[in-house]
């Protein structure tokens, strides 16, 4: 039975991960669990020059760590992620693969000099989790501005798009889901 496994990558707020369980399992109709015993320490992916963590390394490490997991794995962290050619990423996923990683770092209002807004940050995290997991189901960026698969490279763009998959993406995701069963 495939499932979605949330892997906490330290540091991370455990309560935020717990809050994802219900909506993710609703969105993907899969059981969602949190890896409670084996947190990931991302220091191996730290780049001293950029003062950020290389998300591609983290994906590789998760792939090594869970060779037999049937379903999708999403690592979530508070640290800032990057891929070498870009200044930052909100997250990274294997297109039509098993692994996604996601950072809450740039989803926080404090980063933009604003007051903390936990509710808004939770919604952003949920959208990005849906989005990155969507990539693991083979979905590409969607032109529908309301679809959660719409590309967003800033927090405002995350806020503008919706929480859910558009009809087309939903259907493509379901088809991918059936083939993984």
């Amino acid at each position, binding site marked *: 039975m495939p499932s979605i496994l949330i892997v906490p990558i330290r540091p991370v707020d455990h309560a935020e991960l717990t809050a994802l369980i219900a909506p993710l399992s609703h969105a993907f109709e899969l059981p969602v669990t949190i890896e409670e015993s084996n947190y990931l320490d991302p220091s191996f992916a730290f780049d001293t020059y950029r003062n950020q963590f290389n998300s591609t390394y983290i994906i590789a490490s998760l792939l090594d760590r869970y060779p037999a997991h049937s379903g999708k794995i999403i690592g979530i962290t508070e640290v800032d992620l990057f891929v070498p*050619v870009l200044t930052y990423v909100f997250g990274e996923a294997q*297109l039509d693969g098993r692994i996604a990683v996601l950072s809450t770092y740039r989803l926080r209002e404090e980063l933009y000099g604003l007051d903390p807004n936990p509710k808004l940050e939770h919604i952003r995290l949920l959208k990005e989790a849906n989005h990155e997991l969507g990539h693991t189901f083979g979905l590409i960026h969607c032109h529908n501005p309301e679809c959660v698969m719409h590309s967003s490279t800033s927090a405002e763009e995350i806020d503008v798009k919706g929480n859910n998959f558009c009809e087309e993406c939903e259907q493509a995701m379901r088809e991918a889901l059936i083939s993984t069963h």
Partner: protein
Amino acid sequence: MAEKKSVQQSILIVDDELIVRESLTKWFRQDGYRVESAEDANHAIKLMNEGPWDLALLDIKMPGMSGLDLQKRLKEIDKNTGIIMITAFASVESAVQALKEGAFDYVTKPIDPDHLSHIVLNALKHKKIIEENVQLREQISDIAKATDIVGESQQIHNVINLAKTVAKTDTTVMLRGESGTGKELIARAIHANSDRRYFPIIAVNCGAVTESLLESELFGHEKGAFTGAQYRRKGKFELADGGTIFLDEIGNISQKMQVQLLRVIETKQFTRVGGSEVISSDFRVICATNRDLEAAVKDGSFREDLYYRLNVFTISIPPLRERRSDIPLLAEYFRNKYATIMHKAVTEINPNAMDIMVQYDWPGNVREVENVMERAMVLAVPPAIQHTELPFQLASKTHGLQADSLAVVERAQVEMILNRTGWNISRAAEILDIDRVTLYNKIAKYGLKRP
């Protein structure tokens, strides 16, 4: 995975660093693009030849051939591919060089993802607009070429050659010729063959409107400039900006308009009626007249300075009676035109009818041929036009013309114009370019009677 773009757009990534190729490829694939990457110039050229590619992202610094040199090579293979250079901070100068050589934009490593997605979208939009522009230009050229000038006589060939020659320049052209010889058609052909063809050609009939109206027609007016001027209106000179203004019947304008016209043609600047703002417009002037301007200059009714300003390059369009070999071609051309419009299977003109037409003098020139053919086509019973379907005066007048005396020709001309204007003496006198008293004298002399 369902395809979400109607046509999948393609991006070629050229960078010697594996990690850059991999992460950009992944990034763009998630955006739904078709992506391939090359590690060096040779591979890039190979992929380019297998193209086409919508966009190419080139690292400016690579071992072997640099991004700058590669850009030139890729542009040689497909100049339509949009190129974005990837640079390190240290090489911004060479990025500027790349822009000068036609790259769309550049990004510096590491690339801000927000910036990257915008640049890529803009580059694709830019490419699309350029492609649309090329298409539209081709369409306009096709439409412009459709302007038909019918005729194979040496005289009309000379006219066409002169028109083509002068078209490429910005020279003021004066078209001389009798009424109905197709002066506007030639003006449009000159415009259509000039570099101004993507801008409008604005035709103004200077003889058709009164002086005050012509002024606001040509220069436009401000709101409230005169009673009834409820809106600001652009004038013809303003509308012709970038294109051509065709001033028909230039010989008929008043002295006051002549002064104004001279100034605007010389300075390319004017003000709207009732306005004070000086407006500049870049236009080319083509004018036409069937009047004897030289005589008008002599008797003082046409300003000499304006005459010389306009009379830079003159094309005289010969009247139809001086190039009779074109008459059958024109007759066939209009027969075909009206057969199509009227859905009538009239496929030929009876030789008798054609003989009459070739003999006839056609004072109304090509316009008259068209009118006669239209009338004949209404009457014609398929499959051919008979001589009986030609207008009565045309059939009879040709016989009269066998006596070649000037009086006979004059009588025919006067009667024809009178009939054409419905015996409107003022109008007929204007067309014949004689005063009304003279016209009355000629009517009496030839014993012409109102039908």
